């Protein structure tokens, strides 16, 4: 048990280090240097350049800067934002909660809606309507879904505020926008899983024992259908991380998506690196959760 945990932690640390290093190399390889990024479209003279280089210690070799960065990151010091002139820890720290709220709300909404859809729309035409709607939602850009939801529920009927992270009302529309595509994909996967499970011999046995179709579905088939859906959790983390960038922009919400967009656009290396490491950490956590979920869902795996 302890070795298993240790192995998890070690592999997680390696993933974080690899992500940070890959991001560092990518930023290094990108055209233009940090001084260019800090200058932006403003005045550009040798005097200005030398001051910027001196301020951020950019005259050291890249490898020294990289090792220095790793050493400090390991001690929890993520550096200062070139652009925002504040410690990266503060920048990320104050934006993490709104993003987590949004991500969790969207994930819960998406999963619950997918379960409801997969279980309740089993019959011919309902199934076809639901399946078509899911496909349409999945292929619609989240940006557009957000604008349409805003136009109807906020601008037209005034049910929810347009922007900000202020109370639950402000979370509803962004969470639905981010959760709908998740529900669309998961519902499709779950429905397929249910179809397959209901054809298995155990389903026939259960029916033979006199169980009602609904009980066969919920108590027996669903457990089997969940396995492929859980595999999609890794994909889910990608959708959430990519989705918040757009959702936060549309809804004027604070959060990591906004910070990331600004940092990438301005070549703000310390912030970009911190966000990459954070995203990698989230990915590791979610995948660990998925592995645990397998054990929970399938008792056969617990024995081995």
């Amino acid at each position, binding site marked *: 048990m302890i070795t298993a945990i240790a192995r998890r932690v070690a592999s997680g640390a390696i993933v974080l280090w690899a992500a940070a290093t890959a991001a560092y190399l990518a930023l290094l390889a990108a055209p233009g240097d940090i001084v260019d990024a800090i200058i*932006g479209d*403003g005045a550009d*003279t040798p005097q200005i350049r030398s001051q910027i280089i001196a301020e951020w210690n950019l005259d050291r070799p890249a490898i020294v800067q990289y090792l220095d960065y790793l050493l400090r990151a390991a001690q929890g010091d993520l550096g200062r934002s070139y652009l925002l002139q504040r410690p990266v820890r503060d920048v990320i720290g104050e934006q993490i909660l709104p993003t987590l709220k949004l991500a969790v709300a969207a994930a819960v909404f998406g999963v619950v809606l997918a379960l409801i859809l997969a279980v309740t729309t089993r019959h011919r035409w309902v199934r076809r309507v639901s399946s078509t709607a899911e496909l349409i939602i999945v292929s619609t850009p989240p940006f557009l879904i957000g604008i349409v939801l805003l136009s109807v529920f906020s601008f037209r009927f005034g049910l929810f505020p347009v922007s900000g992270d202020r109370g639950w009302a402000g979370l509803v529309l962004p969470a639905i926008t981010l959760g709908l595509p998740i529900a669309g994909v998961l519902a499709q996967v779950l429905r397929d899983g249910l179809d397959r499970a209901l054809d298995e011999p155990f389903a026939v046995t259960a029916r033979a024992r006199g169980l009602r179709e609904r009980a066969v579905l919920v108590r027996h088939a669903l457990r089997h259908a969940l396995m492929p859906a859980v595999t999609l959790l890794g994909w889910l983390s990608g959708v959430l991380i990519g989705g918040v960038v757009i959702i936060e922009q549309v809804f004027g919400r604070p959060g990591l998506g906004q910070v990331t967009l600004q940092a990438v656009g301005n070549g703000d290396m310390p912030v970009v690196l911190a966000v990459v490491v954070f995203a990698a950490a989230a990915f590791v956590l979610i995948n660990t959760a998925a592995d645990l979920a397998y054990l929970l869902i399938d008792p056969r795996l617990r024995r081995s």
Partner: protein
Amino acid sequence: MRRIRPAAAVIALTLILTTAACSSGSSGSTAGAEAGQPVSGGSLTWAVETEPITFNPHQYAQAKARLLVWNTFEALLTHDSRGGHLPWLSTGHEVSADGKIYTFKLRTDVSFSDGTKFDAAAVKANVDQFLVEGYNPTVLAVQLRNLDRVEVVDPATVAFHLKQPDVLLLDFLSSPQGAQVSPKSLKEAKNLKAGGPELAGTGPFILDRYTAGQEVHFTRNPAYNWAPANAGHTGPAYLDEITYRFLKESSVRVGALTSGQVQVIEGVPATDEALITANRQLSLQRGLNSGSAYSYYLNTAHAPFDDLRVRQAFREAVDVEAVLTGVYRGSATRAWSVIGPTSPFYDSTLEKTYSGDTAKANRLLDEAGWTARDAEGFRTKDGKRLTVRLVQSAPFVRDRRDVLAQAVQAAVKQSAGIDLNVALVDQGTATKALADGEYEVFDNSRADTDAGAALNLLLHSGGAINRTGLKDPALDKLLEEGQASGDQAKRLAAYQQVQKLVITDQALILPLYAPADQVASATTVGGLSFEPTAGVPGSAYNVWLSK
């Protein structure tokens, strides 16, 4: 910030559908007309497009952040509407005969919101802060390059000693970078360069809450009683509090306004203007910005723009009027000079003297030897296509300038067979292309309040943003005269010659449009205005909300 454009039409349609119910009749009303007499009290919510990178006025670099700066901070001078200056935190100033010493008398009744008294020592502390390594190298290298030292003569008198005469000092002392921050904040703030609630100013509002990515909140400064003469009223501001919410999507800002969730929005794109003007509960105002017009600067360092005839031909090949109408639906103001039309130095005699003459463009190119055509219809010379490259840095593209570039591209191809190659790239790639001289067209507009400051950067042979490759001692001399003289007539004469040289004689620049700001508001909001000279939305000092 980049927007996702294909969706714009759908969004506009959705908004039209959802607002159709309440839109009837026409507006034509000006803000304030229906808001009645000014009343004190109330809280206002204002949605803005741009979240400032910093709240420290000394670090100011975004014209879109200017309206926030003046709520909290103030400068020694302010601009009047005719290119001159009015006293603000000063009561008057004198210039020595040699133009090298500017002595200011200061107000003695002013305090910062943290209780610190405003005096000559505070002014010196603010300017000296720029000498700190890495604090703001750009201001040190540009605005303060002629400053020798600041002298505290007595608590109410401060003198600026210059190395050489520089009238742009007055522009600096009326700019956000010249704004006065409490010396106590300068010393104690943890994140000085980022600014925020920990920086105290003397302004009519106090910044008390900033939620990054969401909003910034100001409350009224009850002690305020030192507004400049052109501020509209005296004493404290009308509003109790004001919240600026950051809404980056223009369609979302418009929707928030039409649904009454905010009372004022800044940044209304041309595509959404009809939604505002069709609604009787809303009004729209537009202000032309100061500084340089949005222009294409032609790189004379190498072929083909080293040939005057090709530069002239490029300009003649574009029907600017038609291009602007196509992209901005008549909401853009055409520019004829590198200087914006609201500047006192603008030379209106340049209007209608060039551009849009296709026959002339083709004749000039024939004369320059670009006579052959290739399979795609582009002109060639010695087997080389007549290609010119425009590199745009995506993070800085605004006002649909990428779309405008495509329209110009189509125009020069159709009318003269010129291949304008437009590349929309990241900041690093753009900087590299500029550094390597891998471009023929450079696009830029600057929001400097004194157009001379913009021209120094863009046209002087030592200018920090000189991308034309032109090094002309006569031009440099004219620019230096414009900067040194305190005599407005002499400055005007110098800058008119500059404009004639770069626009008429050298055909160095293709001016396109005068950048503008739009503010839309509910008709219950009064006192909204644009800052004199700068032409950007003003602070909230004079704004009121009718009950």
